[in-house]
């Protein structure tokens, strides 16, 4: 099986690698969350990141996006070293993410939340914002149309409620808003951290369609998705990487890796 995975990756290696980690290490005191992780993600790929709880999946996202500093190793993105870059710099380089426990600003409106993701496109000067209200209004109206168009593609009902607080919305809608917030900056790489968390079965199915939609709208987008719902992984990923104790224990197509003995052991505890 390992041979099959390597063969697959070799094939992928002929295409451009967008994100790569080499020997990435992250420790929390005595706990080694990432233990020399090597990972390569090709452009255009949808990569599934799976593994038991505590295997380092979210830690990897947090190290990539600059929330945690790596204790060793390198992260390169589109040819540039982003190992010790700040969250801001990582975002500006073109990586956007969603969070495991939805981190929307609940008292703010749908529009406001999406605009948080649009930060880079908005004029931030004090003078512009306070004194040039007419120019600000033009920028606001352009941004409003853009946000409305984006959310309309996912859920037309939400487009009619742009100025309602997100705190009152169901989980699936919040997740959609989070995805729109990440997409509006037109990132090259989208990190989805367990998008189906806290959702019912039906909602999960809807969400999968949403992710396909994201892909349809932007064929050049690369996605890494962490997910425990194996149905989701099976349906949408091109390739999977399995982590355990901060190490990569398998990679390949979903149906190949599920047959892998090490993967079965990590998940089920049987040899």
């Amino acid at each position, binding site marked *: 099986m390992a041979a099959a995975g390597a063969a697959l990756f070799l094939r992928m290696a002929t295409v451009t690698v967008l994100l790569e980690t080499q020997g990435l290490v992250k420790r929390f005191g005595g706990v080694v969350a990432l233990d020399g992780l090597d990972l390569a993600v090709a452009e255009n790929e949808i990569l599934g990141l799976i593994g038991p709880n505590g295997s380092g999946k979210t830690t990897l996202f947090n190290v990539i*996006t*600059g*929330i945690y500093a790596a204790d060793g190793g390198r992260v390169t993105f589109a040819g540039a070293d982003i190992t010790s870059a*700040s*969250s*801001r710099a*990582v*975002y*500006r380089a073109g990586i*956007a*993410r969603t*969070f495991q426990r939805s*981190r929307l*600003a*609940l*008292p*703010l*409106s749908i529009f*406001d939340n999406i*605009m*948080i*993701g649009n*930060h*880079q496109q*908005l*004029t*931030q000067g*004090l003078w512009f*914002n*306070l004194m040039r*209200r007419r120019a*600000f*209004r033009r920028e*606001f109206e352009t941004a*409003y149309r853009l946000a*409305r168009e984006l959310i309309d593609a996912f859920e037309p009902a939400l487009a*009619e409620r*742009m*100025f*309602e*607080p997100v705190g009152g919305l169901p989980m699936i809608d919040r997740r959609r808003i989070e995805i729109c*917030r990440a997409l509006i*900056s037109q990132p090259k790489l989208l990190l989805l951290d367990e998008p189906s968390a806290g959702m019912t079965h039906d909602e999960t199915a809807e969400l999968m369609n949403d992710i396909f939609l994201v892909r349809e709208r932007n064929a050049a987008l690369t996605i890494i998705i962490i997910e425990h719902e194996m149905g989701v992984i099976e349906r949408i990923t091109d390739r999977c990487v399995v982590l355990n104790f901060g190490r990569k224990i398998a990679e390949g197509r979903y149906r190949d890796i599920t047959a892998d003995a090490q993967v079965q052991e990590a998940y089920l505890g049987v040899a």
Partner: protein
Amino acid sequence: MPAEKPEAALWPVLCALACATVYLGALLAAERQTLIIALLAVGVAAVAGAAWFGLLERVGRSFTAHENAFGGGAIVAALALAGFFHDNHFVLLLMVTVLLYSVATLGLNVQFGYAGVVNFAGASFFGIGAYTSAVLNAQTNVPHLLVIVIGGLLAALAGSLLLLPVLRTRGHYAAVVTIAFALLFKTFLEVNDVLGGPQGMQVKGMTLFGWSFNDSIEIGGISASFYLNYFVLSLLMLIGAFVLVQRLERSWIGLNLDALRLDETAAACFGLNVARWKITAFLIGNFLIGAAGALFGMVGGFVAPNNYTFADSLILVSILLLGGIGNPWGLVLATIIVVVLPEKLQTLQEYRFFLYALMVIAVLLFRPEGLWPRPVRRYFSGWRP
């Protein structure tokens, strides 16, 4: 899709404003304690009744649709009240106090309400402004309007001393830093003889283009209190600060501040420069507080360390909680309540503060978002998608 709702009418909110103005006028004019207490009871009953019969909701909708007209009406109402009490020193001073405290709480609101940076040294920065005008008016010939600006700048400068510790600490710890500053500031004033020590200093009144604000005025044979001068200037200052803060909230900067208050990590993941916006909010807030303090120093004519204690800072913060954090209109309403009530309830003496504390606790229990909670951001008043 729901049918487009017709725009709410203008008259409910103007009616409510007129009633509130007449009521406030009556309260300010009342001298007998029984009458004042009766008026307060009537006021509370009227608001409760209006809420019960759904009138408040109607007024609210009308307000949302015609916010600018309401703002204009509020200015007219303030001028009408000042005109009515034109020869009454006490009432005019009370109104000036309301206006300038409103400016200061607007500044505090930018820091605490939007950026989430707690500041328990509001009164100290207010005091920096007041001491600035005391020193500059006595020692130099700097034009007094400029003194107000310098007061604001010095408060911002002093605040930047706190920036590093405030940026490095969060929540309670940042609060402790500002409390320490408030205590140090008072001690600093007390031991510093140049600044008058514990006795404080006199402040020369305002002069604007050769016209002294401390002379009483005569307009067409009617003599008016000299406080009317300060009233007009303070009103202009509040209008300016109000428009500034409201525009700030209704801009990308207001959004940045909300985003970093609610979730700093997520905000940084979307490219927001957390330190830059915290600093901006803290400095703008301190500037407003200091500028208000500088003018207030000239109004009172006297500054002393005991006027700018930690307890006074707490009162400023409680105005914020009472009014509705983040809503400029709510802050003005709360400032009126907090400044006017204790002055009118003299018989209760020390129990005034007890009553006041009870009021704050009741609001926190039953209306945790304040008397006039902040609505969801609308970038332009009356704008509809």
